[in-house]
């Protein structure tokens, strides 16, 4: 083999603490290395061109680039060597930036380490083989998990591009958090007026199949061909017959059910349509509150239903669909704020969450758009908003900024003044974070035009006094303590990853961070991709964000899915297992351990042998580590290749 080695300076990122020329010099002596040089920016166009020119000039048959992490630029350089006429797998990277230059300042040690990493890469490269991908057909259908605004956007964009879309929504209606909002910042336009039509589009789009009140049960398969099982939870109402007339909800005698959609601001019935604009506009029974299920008798809804849609014997149903790509858009939940004793831990009815307040402001909410104190139904005059509740608080494991609370608090203060002109709002805040188009102006307007009083400081306690709540806090700008007598306290509760996010991530085989947010493929360059090919992210499931960002990400995820599925055939990753049949003794151990059922037993002249199903193999190499005689090997990570790396490092 004729190996060329290129040591990247990465400007001063590597060259600052590694003697790149020295490394190149040492590498020149490694076995099969015929050309070795250092280079300013290997990934830039001149860098890539230099690699290609060197391949041609020196007749190189393999290339080592020592630069950043292969997780970043391996695809870049593989393409480059391919342009130079070498198979893309005749290439290795040595990570001398993230693993060397950025983690230590000792130039001598770094240079030595870099040289060794190059040696390892070259040693492995000597055993690399040309690999060629195979093509397989794709299913031109995309699954969108979650029917909030991000999921809706992704679904509509994908459907408009001609893809079939399957949307799965956990709740009986799509719309997500945005459907609960009264108005949106910074325009103070009506949330349901802008979201509603989009929801209708989802329902009416010929390319979109909606499974509401359903959850993802299982995912198998791989990019281009995922096999998905969806659990349609029993609603006890046959939705093919239900017309959404609402008669059942009027007659239902169980009127004290928890109203999930309205955040418990008022009670609702056991059979319900979450809100007037719900999509689908179908009734479903909350089993926990239904008299028939809990007391054994009732059946009023079945009696009044004009279409006979009620079906108490309904069971969950599993639907199987094949999709080519998946968009996760599962959103967020509010943190449980009742952990805070200083805010009353849920004891005071007139301390409400921001989302509950939205429902009070909404004309379609349980109070008909009139702000009423939960305790006595009176209109509040003094309203205190407390920001950063369960945000930026390491003590409860939520050290991050939720990002949208400053803005919606400002909006709610404005709406309070609109609803009750003689009211006074107070906002306790830590910092006002309002980067965004028109955002900072908005937070000024609420103070300057609407007279909201912003107090920079934390609230130390809330206690009842007479019919009011005294909010005691610090004013760090003026110095000293302040007390405000409030009629109503609104907590700007921060968000967290939606319940069940880690479990979903495991089903999708994507990573999630310590908080449960899904990990994007790269924080800068792959914001909607994941490390699992064919799975994309949209909205707050990736990290908390506001509506415009969620919509943008929904479109971005759709674009990625559209791009992926615009092709009729996909190339398989050739880094998969292969069997040397003459060495295989048919012991079945590889078959036993394969997580993907990608190995089957075949009969070869009366002898049992293992065979890899190439389209199913994901390339984990578990079989390889299991086979005692090494008859099954993982291409590009064979025993010999890894042994070559080990031996390049060993002292003895």
């Amino acid at each position, binding site marked *: *083999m004729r190996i060329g080695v290129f040591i990247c300076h990465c400007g001063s990122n590597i060259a600052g603490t590694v003697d790149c020329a020295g490394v190149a010099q040492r590498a020149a002596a490694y076995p*099969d290395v015929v050309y070795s040089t250092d280079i300013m920016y290997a990934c830039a166009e001149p860098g890539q061109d230099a690699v290609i020119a060197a391949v041609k000039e020196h007749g190189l048959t393999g290339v080592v680039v020592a630069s950043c*992490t*292969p*997780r*970043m630029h391996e695809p870049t350089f593989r393409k480059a060597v391919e342009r130079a006429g070498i198979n893309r797998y005749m290439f290795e990277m040595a*990570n001398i*930036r*993230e*693993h*060397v230059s*950025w*983690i*230590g*300042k*000792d130039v*001598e*040690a*770094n240079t*030595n*380490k870099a040289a*060794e990493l190059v*040696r*390892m890469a070259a*040693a492995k490269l*000597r*055993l690399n083989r040309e690999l060629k991908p195979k093509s397989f057909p794709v299913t031109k259908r995309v699954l969108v998990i979650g029917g909030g605004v991000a999921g809706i956007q992704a679904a509509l964009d994908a459907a408009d591009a001609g893809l079939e879309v399957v949307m799965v929504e956990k709740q009986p209606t799509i719309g997500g958090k945005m459907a609960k909002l009264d108005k949106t910042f910074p325009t103070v336009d009506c949330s349901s007026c802008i979201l509603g039509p989009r929801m209708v589009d989802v329902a009416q789009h010929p390319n979109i199949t909606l499974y509401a009140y359903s959850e993802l049960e299982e995912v198998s398969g791989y990019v281009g061909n995922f096999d998905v099982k969806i659990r349609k939870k029993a609603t006890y109402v046959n939705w093919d017959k239900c017309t959404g007339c609402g008669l059942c909800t009027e007659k239902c005698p169980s009127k004290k059910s928890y109203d999930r959609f309205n955040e418990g601001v008022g009670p609702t019935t056991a059979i319900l349509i979450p809100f007037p604009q719900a999509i689908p506009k179908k009734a479903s029974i909350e089993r926990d509150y239904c008299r028939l299920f809990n007391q054994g008798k009732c059946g009023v809804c079945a009696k009044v239903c004009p279409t006979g849609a009620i079906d108490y014997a309904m069971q969950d149903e599993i639907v199987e669909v094949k999709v080519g790509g998946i968009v996760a858009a599962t959103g967020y939940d509010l943190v449980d704020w009742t952990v805070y004793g200083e805010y009353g831990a849920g004891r005071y009815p007139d301390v409400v969450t921001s989302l509950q307040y939205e429902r009070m402001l909404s004309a379609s909410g349980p109070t008909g758009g009139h702000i009423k104190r939960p305790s006595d139904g009176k209109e509040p005059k003094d309203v205190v908003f407390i920001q950063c509740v369960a945000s930026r608080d390491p003590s409860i494991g939520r050290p991050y900024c939720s990002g949208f609370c400053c803005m919606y608090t400002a909006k709610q203060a404005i709406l309070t003044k609109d609803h009750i002109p003689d009211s006074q709002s107070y906002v306790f805040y830590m910092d006002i974070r309002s980067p965004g188009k028109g955002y900072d102006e908005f937070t000024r307007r609420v103070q300057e035009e609407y007279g909201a009083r912003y107090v920079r400081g934390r609230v130390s306690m809330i206690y009842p006094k007479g019919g009011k709540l005294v909010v005691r806090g610090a004013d760090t700008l003026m110095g000293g303590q302040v007390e405000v007598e409030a009629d109503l306290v609104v907590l700007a509760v921060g968000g967290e990853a939606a319940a069940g996010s*880690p479990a979903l*991530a*495991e089903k999708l*085989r994507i*990573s*999630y*961070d*310590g908080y449960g947010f899904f*990990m994007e493929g790269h924080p800068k360059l792959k914001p909607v991709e994941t*490390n*699992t090919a064919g799975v994309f992210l949209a909205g707050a499931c990736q990290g908390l964000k506001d509506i415009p960002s969620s919509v943008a990400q929904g479109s971005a995820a759709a674009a990625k899915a559209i791009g992926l599925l615009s092709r009729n055939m996909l190339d398989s990753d050739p*880094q998969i297992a292969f069997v040397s049949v003459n060495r295989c003794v048919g012991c079945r151990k590889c078959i036993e*351990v394969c*997580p993907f059922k990608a190995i089957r037993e075949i009969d070869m002249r009366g002898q049992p042998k293992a065979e890899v199903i190439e389209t199913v193999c994901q390339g*984990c*190499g*578990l079989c*390889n*580590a*299991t086979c005692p005689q090494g008859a099954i090997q*993982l291409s590009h*990570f064979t*025993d010999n290749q*890894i*042994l070559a*790396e*080990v*031996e*390049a*490092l*060993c*002292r*003895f």
Partner: protein
Amino acid sequence: MSVLEGKELRIVGFLCNWCSYGGADTAGVGRFTQPTDLRIIRVPCSGRINPLFVMKALIGGADGVLVSGCHPRDCHYAEGNYYARRRLEVLKGLLPVLGINPSRFEYTWVSASEGQRWQHVVETFTARIHALGPAQAFAGTTGPANHNRADAMVS
């Protein structure tokens, strides 16, 4: 291959591509300073790591071997780390009877977001190996050292 005599010891790391290698990258991006002893071999999954790779390194002259994969439940390939956990845990039972200090080998889980945890793991393990000092070669080698032999192999 020479380490920096007196400064470094030879520590070989086997890291899965998806979590721990990413975690080591994250540590780098965050400029979390680490000792320089460790050399990382990237494998797709901790399940790919045949315990014999660990043994090959230890008998071949590594002073320490560190394996890191995705946290349980977080394996990119769903189950690889579960197998790795059993196999590597069992392997620990072999080292003392062979005459190798079992502290020279360890395995752990680091996710792609845990740059700081990776720094902690590297610092802790490196300190542990330095406390043990260099491993002694198994006497009785007559031929050239390992890597020279490997170099001689026809590629």
